[in-house]
């Protein structure tokens, strides 16, 4: 059991958690940030994706203790006063979700991709997004949303 200091969505949190407890568990159970989802617990489905210093990270596969010092961004940290990010708005515009459970992870993975690549082609999109599972079958619309967001990001 140790005291961790985490930086989540710009706020500092002191958390008392066992060494091996995952970041996902800390976010959901201790910080009440339930926007990041549990889907498989093994890094296979992407539902738990957050940003660590801007890079997509599967929070179920990393101990919270290993994230001290990094800037963690969850889905809750994207929107500012009701203003959605370009990626979030693109998902809305394309209707790129159905049940919405995979959506947080999809948006975080897409956000990280577009930070790294301004003009991703289909192959690059798939490379970044293939780790995110959707059971409702919204893949084509998510792909379209990423293309749309990329256009806006490029300006």
């Amino acid at each position, binding site marked *: *059991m140790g005291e961790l200091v985490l930086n989540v969505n710009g706020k500092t949190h002191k958390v008392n*958690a*066992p060494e091996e*407890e*995952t970041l996902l*568990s800390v976010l*959901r*159970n*201790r910080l*009440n*940030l*339930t*926007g*990041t*989802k*549990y*889907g*498989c*617990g*093994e890094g*296979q*489905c992407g*539902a738990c994706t957050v940003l660590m210093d801007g890079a997509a990270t599967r929070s179920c596969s990393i101990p919270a203790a290993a994230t001290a010092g990094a800037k963690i961004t*969850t*889905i*809750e940290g*994207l*929107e500012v006063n009701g203003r*959605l990010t370009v990626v*979030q708005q693109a*998902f*809305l515009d394309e*209707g790129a*979700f*159905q*049940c*919405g*459970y*995979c*959506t*947080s992870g999809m*948006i975080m993975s897409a956000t990280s991709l577009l930070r790294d690549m301004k003009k991703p082609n289909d192959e690059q*999109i*798939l490379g970044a*997004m*293939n780790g*995110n*599972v*959707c*059971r*409702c*079958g*919204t*893949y*084509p*619309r*998510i*792909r379209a949303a990423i293309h749309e967001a990329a256009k806006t990001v490029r300006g």
Partner: protein
Amino acid sequence: MHKDFELPQQVSRRAFLQTSLVTGGALVFAFHFGGRAVAADAAPPKSVVKYPPASFIRVEPDGTTVFQINKLEMGQGVNTSMAQILAEEMDCDWSKVRSESAPVNAVFNHTGFGTQMTGGSSALNSSYEQHRTIGAMARAMFVQAAAEKWEVPTSSLHTENGFVLGSKGKLSYAELAPAVALLSPPETVLLKDPKKFKIIGKSVERVDAFDKSTGKAKFGLDVQIPGMLYCVVARAPVFGAKVKSVNDTAAKAVSGVKMVLALPDRVAVLASNTHAARMGRDALQVDWEKTGKEGVSSASILKEYQEAAKTPGAVAEDKGDTANEMGKAKKKIEAEYVFPYLAHACMEPMNCTINFDGQTCEIWSGHQMPTIDRDTAATMLGLDKERVQVHTTYAGGSFGRRANKNSDYVVEACMIALKAKTPFKVVWTREDDMKGGYYRPFTYHKAVVGLDAKGMPHAWDHRIVGQSVVGDSFFEKMMVKNGVDPTCVEGVAGSHYNVPNRFVTLALQKQHVPVLWWRSVGHTHTAYAMETLMDEIAHNAKKDPLALRLELLKGSPRHVAVLKLLKKVSPWGKPAPKGRAYGLAIQESFNSVVGQVVEVSMSDGQPRVHRVWAAAHVGRVVNPEGAKTQLEGGILFGLSAALYGKVDIADGVPTANNFNDYPVVRMNEAPVIHSFFVDSEDKPTGLGEPGVPPLAPAVANAVFRLTKKRVRTLPFKDSLA
């Protein structure tokens, strides 16, 4: 399950007076009883219907219209589409609409099933007329209130966007709400002329869009209530096994674990967070009693079923004289099909939050059948039904899993609650979920089709062997008649194909593996058998598969319309690109007809689906983009199952654990999908499930063209290995 839903029965005055909604600050209009709807576009209804608009609608002081949605929002878009129907007739401001999940109450019963439930792709079909009437009644009451205030005839007023307008000016619904609260609903209402629809038929943005894109939407797994513990359960690896002994010393010593509760058939670990609960469960030592099912395997089940198919089972359809006419056949096609158990694999694993204090109980989850869950919980906890409140959250997919005939995870939560005496949330891990049973049943088909001199099917003997999804539940008595569970034979028995002699039988089997409806239920296997057989028949007769179907579906105008639309919008009939082939399939399910053409190539011996053209007859389309996404969703769901779907049983235990050994389709495997709808002004029919059945057989038919192999055992991953 498949009938068109009639207007509902009378709702007793007492039933809905109990449901008047009163919230702090919101203005609710009370009423006494509903009235009769007169559709502007149809003959007057046969029965006098009583609707309680106030149970479904309230208008808040800021002008927001809040709708109670009595169906589970599990991705299929009911929170939006049902709101569209209410809003259209009500003429409220669509930009200020909010949908809430309705509490459990008889007033919210499914108009056809007499219980509150979501399933059978029937939400819109069963609610369309009811919701139009409710919206129209509300509108009439706002007009009435304004007429009285202005002292003008109601006929001089009209409504628009949440306002009543007349020569004296305009009044908002919010301003009128207090007066409306004192009015009785009208005896008759006029429904809008559909030509004037502004919201129904439009691809309005989903009402849950913002919340789902910002992480604000709460799913069952997200529920948190004060003082709640987190519970993880050790369940028997072999279904039905009882606990022999438990050593919980190590589990109790895990930091954060608060209690370990041994029940007759499972052990619950409750802790201050999920991590600790899981660690606690890992530290449990549980010995399970043998059940005698430890030797069951997929292979042993198949053997049993093949044996059972040697003789015909219970008769599901007996058309003409198949036994005799088969003898006259010029040629026969014989085929056996094997379909494995399938997991629902919803993105959100099962869960249930419960707060039972001995006197009352609250339950939270994504319920497809909340009345049944509520009643079952009440019985288990020894409470009157009124003391049990079931809250339906968003569901991260369901596909039938959360319509559990045995209320499995609710019963489990209640069993634990009786001992725990603290609120808690039962969390299922992905492994718990995959191994937790309630699969699409393992099913076996044996078909013999006798062809005439022209190669057309003349006699059709079709034997189906499988488990009843309603077995071991109160549904069984209602639905299984003379040994026939209609959900096992739907799509074969009563098929629209004009075959003069057809004999369909079903041999129901029992297994220790629990089974449940899985998106499109019987059609998941019957469509595969029927549509691949049709393809074989066409191939043998040297006929184009689409033309053959048109010939055999004369007299089925919806099927014909779908095939003609497919022919128009897809490249069917033209040569496919090099290395690719087209496959075709059509199936009617849940009152809708869906046809698909797929474009497939082979890659490392496995099919790769590049494009899909889907044509559907679903009656009136309430939300075009929403409707398309449902077809797309069904296609991708069907594709996962066709390519990879399989839960094997080995040593009595399911072999699937996580997405590594129960793979599902990922973004790189998603085809480009083009969806089209036959123009129709019929009542909306099903969309949640009908996109699933045609996909697998269409792919199989294309695979035949490319490889000359007829795949009759799913998934493709195994058959084409």
